[in-house]
């Protein structure tokens, strides 16, 4: 029996972690990044940009001091040299940002110094949370297909990004999710009963049945309730991080979003505010290839989302989202530095949305079965972790069989229980609009009540809590 509880990792950080944050100052170190255009252009010399970074971290006044005698540009907006030949900066100055990984597709550690050395029990916990999420997805997806719930969104293929990042955080860190981050909440210990209660909008739903399925939230687990509008959480997360910085309690904020949401104006706002106001925050982009049906090549022209970090003066990295250890390492280091240095970090986790966008979507209309099969069969975060565990003798066929049976049982029990529960009290329609129930809401409530008394035979009142 696996306890779904909030767990802290029983081990410390990695001393030998050679972390490759693609910050502006660190661009040179990264293989595969074309720096030719940068190097040719004296005005963008990396050394100068390094100075800029140093300024930023120290939180000193960043505008360059006015110094008229020197033969340098005095424009307040940039610190740079003059050049005497016309040259545009190539858009591919930052291109081919490498994908950081720890394991190869067969689950073998590539560079032992990057192995996070996570103990067996915790790795098993990773695996069990990833597979439990998978099982829950399957059952809730089917229950939508059977008309039992109205809507669902699966997390297939993105389990590694959820568990790897969640495990690297402190449980006090505040999470702002988009909507496909159920694994983060599951890792933190959100019980299956409450996942189900939300999807069924029953009387146990913490959100009081007011939102569509998958809009989870938990005050106790520091997971801000999901809202449907995309990217709105990004500037909010920056604000929350600013408030936490002022509290000085060593807390950080993590903000999840997709590569599609990163096109919203709010994403720009959030990045720019976090950078200029020096907020301890991790922007975690799940680049899963599709925004509903729109592929990434119709979403942006640059090198993904990580390439935008330097433009905001923000530390950035691209990781293999299907490698739970890579996600873990990147998030852990980003968190440590975000708090220590009061600055935002951008992690672009490359992954693939194996499921449809939601139950309202049929992805066969815009992508091939072969493509989906590749990710499902050959590059899946769960199978990669399983390879890793199998190689160490940490997980065998018998355990797999037993766990599959047990996890399915856990999910089915929660599912059946949720289905039997009553719906929330109708009065809850009127609470929480404001902190207080205003006179007009009171009036509407009484009006509804009178209506229900008069025409009760037309309403299924017996399915609602009294």
């Amino acid at each position, binding site marked *: 029996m696996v306890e779904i509880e909030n767990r802290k990792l029983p081990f410390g950080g990695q001393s030998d972690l050679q972390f490759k944050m693609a910050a502006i100052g660190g661009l040179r170190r990264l293989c595969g990044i074309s720096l030719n255009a940068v190097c040719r252009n004296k005005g963008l010399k990396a050394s100068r940009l390094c100075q800029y970074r140093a300024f930023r971290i120290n939180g000193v006044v960043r505008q360059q001091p006015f110094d008229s005698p020197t033969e340098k540009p005095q424009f307040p907006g940039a610190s740079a040299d003059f050049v005497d030949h016309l040259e545009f900066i190539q858009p591919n100055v930052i291109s081919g940002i490498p994908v950081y990984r720890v394991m190869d597709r067969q689950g073998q550690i590539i560079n032992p110094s990057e192995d996070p050395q996570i103990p067996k029990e915790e790795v098993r916990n990773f695996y069990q949370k990833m597979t439990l999420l998978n099982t829950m997805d399957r059952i809730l997806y089917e229950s939508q297909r059977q008309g039992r719930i109205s809507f669902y969104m699966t997390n297939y293929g993105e389990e590694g990004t959820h568990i790897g990042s969640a495990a690297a955080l402190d449980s006090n860190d*505040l999470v*702002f999710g988009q909507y496909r981050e159920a694994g983060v909440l599951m890792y933190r210990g959100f019980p299956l009963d409450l996942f189900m209660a939300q999807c069924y909008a029953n009387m146990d*739903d*913490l*959100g*009081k049945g*007011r*939102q569509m399925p998958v*809009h989870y*939230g*938990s*005050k106790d687990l520091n997971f*801000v*309730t999901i*809202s449907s*509008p995309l990217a*709105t959480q*990004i*500037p*909010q*997360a*920056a*604000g*929350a*991080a*600013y*408030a*936490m910085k*002022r*509290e000085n309690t060593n807390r950080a904020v993590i903000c999840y979003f997709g590569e599609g949401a990163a096109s919203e*104006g*709010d994403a*720009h*706002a*959030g990045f*720019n*505010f976090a950078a*200029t*106001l020096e907020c301890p925050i991790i922007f975690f982009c799940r680049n899963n290839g599709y925004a509903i049906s729109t592929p990434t090549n119709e979403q942006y022209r640059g090198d993904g989302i990580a390439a935008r970090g330097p433009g905001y003066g923000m530390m950035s990295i691209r990781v293999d989202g299907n490698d739970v250890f890579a996600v873990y390492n990147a998030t852990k280091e980003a968190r440590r530095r975000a708090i220590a240095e009061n600055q935002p970090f951008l992690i672009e986790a490359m992954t693939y949305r194996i499921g449809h966008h939601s139950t309202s979507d049929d992805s066969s209309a815009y992508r091939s079965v072969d493509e989906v099969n590749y990710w499902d069969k050959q590059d899946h975060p769960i199978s990669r972790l399983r390879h890793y565990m199998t190689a160490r003798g940490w997980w065998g066929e018998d355990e797999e069989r037993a766990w599959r049976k047990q996890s399915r049982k856990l999910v089915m029990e929660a599912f059946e229980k949720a289905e039997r529960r009553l719906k929330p009290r109708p009065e809850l329609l009127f*609470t*929480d*609009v*404001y*902190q207080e129930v*205003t*006179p*007009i*809401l009171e009036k509407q409530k009484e009006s509804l009540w009178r209506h229900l008394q008069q025409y009760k035979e037309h309403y299924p009142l017996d399915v609602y809590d009294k």
Partner: protein
Amino acid sequence: MAAAARFLLRTAGSSKASITNVNSGLHSKFGATLLRASPSCHPLAKTQKRHAAHFTFQPEPVQTKYGPTQKMNLFQSVTSALDNTLASDPTAVIFGEDVAFGGVFRCTVGLRDKYGKDRVFNTPLCEQGIVGFGIGVAVAGATAIAEIQFADYIYPAFDQIVNEAAKYRYRSGNLFDCGNLTIRAPWGCVGHGSLYHSQSPEAFFAHCPGIKVVVPRGPVQAKGLLLSCIADQNPCIFFEPKILYRAAVDQVPVESYQIPLSEAEVLQEGSDVTLVAWGTQVHVIKEVAAMAQEKLGVSCEIIDLQTILPWDSETVCKSVVKTGRLLVSHEAPVTGGFAAEVSSTVQEECFLNLEAPIARVSDDQLLKCRITWSSEAQCRH
């Protein structure tokens, strides 16, 4: 004002001839108003012209129930409220475009130096970011006071206000809320504001349960209502009539005090007609009421709504039951303006008490330009 006068005439059953008389009386009064220097105007004639308004601000009677008072104009009373808040609430932060040096309307002057640059700071120029950031600060439990530089520029933040701030508490089942957020924005017409520095967008937000929308009529109300908005556990939008920033001067209590939200104030009791307005327009209808009394012998009851959402329908309806007539006037366009909501509610609640159709007084599209032209044109003559 002419429209208001027409309504009053119709109410009083006067002839067309008297309309002309009233109108001419109105114009002479209007001119006289403009010739008077507003209280805080610079003595130079040129400055007087720029600050000349379409109304005369009458200071509030001095009240001592909140302790010692000081002469303050509206922007100083806002600063005073912010000062009180920063002093009493260590989590409070104030931010927006150009607020660090004191703000383009001088509402945050001296606060950064007094409380530190981490508490009073500039943000990048991005309204959706300012409001989104403010929501996040509030969700984390701190007090967020966001400034949008002009109400005309609040629209990029519309999604954050309507979909996020207003629904935070409801959608989370009260797990999370951003009740500590207050958004301040200069609002309404001003002599030279023209098309994009004069808008009164309160009606857009009045359609959005979950937020509170407040407009003060002068310095005393600005401080008391702003402090109520900051203390209120719901996100509030506080629109500051920018024409009053310097023109309106009251004796304002120095210490913190609150004026309750969602309570309209009856400024003058009357028996024949109820006049409802908020913000700057309160001063206009006060003059109209005096004119109606003088020229027509019509007794007007004047109500300052103060809070647009959730609004105090009880006070307005009680008044209309007594007077049998209602006129609502605002600066914003009449179609879909908040007067329509007031009118509709009063019609539902007071149908049998009404003795005349309810009148809404505003222009439909042109008010901003007209105010600009008329006040400046009058100045030139």
